[in-house]
């Protein structure tokens, strides 16, 4: 078999904010760069494009990078890799300067960037858009121009399936050109993973469902060390039903602003049962946990959540709020669905929002595989720890783009193009073709659905050992019976969504196993990881869970946290 083969210095996989920033940096340092993207470049579901608010950087005294680092470590329950936090956040001011220079319209006041205070931060440090301006579309517009200006090659609609490695060195990747249905090889001196998270492995997410952990899975299959996979962030309440606003995070803002009541399908204000004193005043995380418990007990709303109601509030109070929120898209959608919050409840549920786990990386964004770099959600390194401060992720993405792009370009200058293993390419291409060529088998869509059901049942909030063990057993069944026996219904080659589903299903399965195995091992509750059977935080668990593939086996180990900057208080 022969494949179309292209060579480059730096291959960037993923056209979100981290990948783009890395491509710019590598290109500025003289490297030839190819950027592949699963969808249409800058018209896709990359998380940053949906951002409303800005990002965090310590710009002016009395704020300092040191304070930003400390806030982040405290917010991460002391599980962060402190060196990484410092390395990346020190670049915060530069990320702001770059974005400003390139034309992102940031709000300014008296010649200073205007910064907002976010929960968990000691100082107002979130740069924001000019009034009424969402920053997501700004990033998308500006970064697109920066890429075009630099003549970086962008390969749209290209689904990278696997990394190509030869003797623990990654030398590029193989994948499917979705437009033509042909398999292509990209050989590269440095390969940068910037594929985003795996929130799409859950039924309900505020992110795009195309975030199926592709980079996580391909890195793991290539032997890279993964870590912190048990930590997944959930927004306590996103819009579940009516369906036309599914996944919208606006109910979370309503929660913060209007103190709604929550009902189960029996009409019971169930939070009173869980928290007799605080009731609806309990933390939103605790309330979200109760919603999940109600659903598990069969008392959830028809679509698997709870009813969020505002009926107890005076109508004119709600009207005043609605007048202030005029123009908010969400209310248009409610109107389209015939819903009026003065009268009707909306169905809400916790939704997967961000992932903390990914590849182990060092402060140069190098993974444990030579020649492979990982950024953003794909490159965890433990930078977020057990929870994440609001507004840090875009800062991390941009900073890691700078570091990863620089290092990838440097490596490309020093080294020759690594060899790739042709037999491997053939084996991997047969795997790609298998669901298209198989005449009989499971429809990929069904397999994806099963995986999402399992993770959504057992690996959201309020986990327990028995559930996680059951989940692992069910995933094992899928691995043995379903994933190798998928067959697409559609057999054409050009833009076959059925085929794409099959390739994503395989990645989702790898990721789901990593999440459940890590969550089962961590027998404590810390940050975003809540174990019903181990409700206490255990200082003995101030360590990372590491996973890597050896042969066909998943090898699990732990690594202690290096408290080189801050020691946890005794009770942490």
């Amino acid at each position, binding site marked *: 078999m022969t494949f179309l083969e292209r060579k480059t210095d730096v291959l960037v996989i993923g056209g979100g904010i981290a990948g783009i920033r890395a491509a710019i940096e590598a290109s500025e340092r003289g490297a030839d760069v190819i950027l592949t993207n699963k*969808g*249409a*470049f800058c*018209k*896709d*579901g*990359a998380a940053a*494009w*949906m*951002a*409303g608010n800005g990002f965090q950087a310590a710009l002016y005294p009395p704020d300092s990078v040191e304070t930003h680092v400390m806030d982040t470590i405290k917010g991460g329950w002391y599980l962060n890799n402190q060196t990484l936090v410092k390395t990346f956040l020190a670049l915060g001011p530069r990320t702001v300067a770059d974005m400003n220079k390139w034309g992102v319209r940031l709000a300014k006041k008296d010649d200073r960037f205007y910064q907002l205070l976010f929960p968990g931060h000691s100082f107002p440090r979130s740069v924001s858009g000019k009034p009424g301006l*969402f920053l*997501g*579309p700004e990033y*998308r517009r500006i970064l697109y121009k920066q890429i075009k200006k630099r003549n970086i090659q962008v390969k*749209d*609609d290209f689904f990278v399936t696997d990394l190509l490695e030869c003797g623990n060195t990654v030398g590029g990747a193989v994948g499917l050109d979705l*437009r*033509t249905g042909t398999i292509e090889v990209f050989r590269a001196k440095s390969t940068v993973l910037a594929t985003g998270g795996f929130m799409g492995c859950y039924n309900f997410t*505020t*992110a*795009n*469902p*195309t975030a199926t952990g592709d980079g996580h899975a391909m890195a793991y299959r290539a032997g890279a060390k993964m870590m912190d996979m048990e930590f997944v962030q959930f927004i306590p309440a*996103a819009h579940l039903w*009516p*369906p*036309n*606003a*599914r*996944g*919208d*995070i606006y109910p979370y803002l309503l929660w913060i602003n209007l103190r709604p009541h929550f009902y189960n399908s029996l009409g019971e204000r169930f939070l009173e049962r869980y928290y007799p004193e605080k009731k609806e005043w309990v933390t939103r995380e605790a309330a979200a946990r109760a919603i999940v418990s109600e659903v598990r007990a069969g008392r959830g709303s028809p679509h698997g959540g709870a009813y969020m109601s505002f009926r107890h509030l005076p109508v004119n109070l709600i009207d005043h709020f609605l007048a202030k929120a005029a123009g908010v*898209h969400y209310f248009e959608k409610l109107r*389209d*669905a*015939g819903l009026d919050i003065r009268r009707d409840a909306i169905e809400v549920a916790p939704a997967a929002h961000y992932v903390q786990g990914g590849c182990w990386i060092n402060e140069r964004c190098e993974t444990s595989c030579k020649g492979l770099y990982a950024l953003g959600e794909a490159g965890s390194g433990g930078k977020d720890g057990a929870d994440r401060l609001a507004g840090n992720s875009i800062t991390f993405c941009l900073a890691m783009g700078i570091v990863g792009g620089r290092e990838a370009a440097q490596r490309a200058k020093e080294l020759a193009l690594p060899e790739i293993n042709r037999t491997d390419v053939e084996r991997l291409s047969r795997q790609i073709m298998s669901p298209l060529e198989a005449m009989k088998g499971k*429809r990929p*869509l069904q397999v994806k659905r099963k995986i999402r059901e399992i993770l959504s049942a057992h690996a959201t909030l309020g986990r327990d050992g028995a559930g996680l063990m059951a989940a692992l057993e069910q995933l094992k069944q899928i691995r043995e019976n379903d994933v190798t026996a998928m067959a*697409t*219904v*559609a057999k*054409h*080659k*050009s*833009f*076959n*969504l*059925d085929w794409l589903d099959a390739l994503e299903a395989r990645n989702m399965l790898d990721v789901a196993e990593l999440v459940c195995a890590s969550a089962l091992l961590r027998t404590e509750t810390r940050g975003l990881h809540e174990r019903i059977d181990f409700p206490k935080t255990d200082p003995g668990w101030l360590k990372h869970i590491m996973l890597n593939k050896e042969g066909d086996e998943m090898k699990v180990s732990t690594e202690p946290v290096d408290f080189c900057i801050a020691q946890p208080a005794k009770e942490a």
Partner: protein
Amino acid sequence: MDEKGDVTIFTFDPSSDNEPKYKTYEVEWKGLTVLQVLKQIYENQDAKIAFRSGCDGVGPARCGACVVEVNNSPVLACQMPATKKMVIKPHRKFTIVKDLIVDFERERGADV
């Protein structure tokens, strides 16, 4: 039972078809967005249909992936409430890759 709607979709695979065909599907549509109707068709009726989706309309901003024409007006499928009778076509400005999927980097010639 809800009354079903009729959706007519432009289909065209430049690698194998000489000219586009329109296919009509009977669908649930009430309370759904155009994108949700397209997903329903893909999942339950026609696995061959191709369309783009990205952010699915969540969050405060929009990614623009799912732009199509519904009854000759360009709309974001994730934002547009479905109606009982719809004709869905690819955006007229861009070159067609397959069915409703276009290449945003190339403007369309006079060919289709």
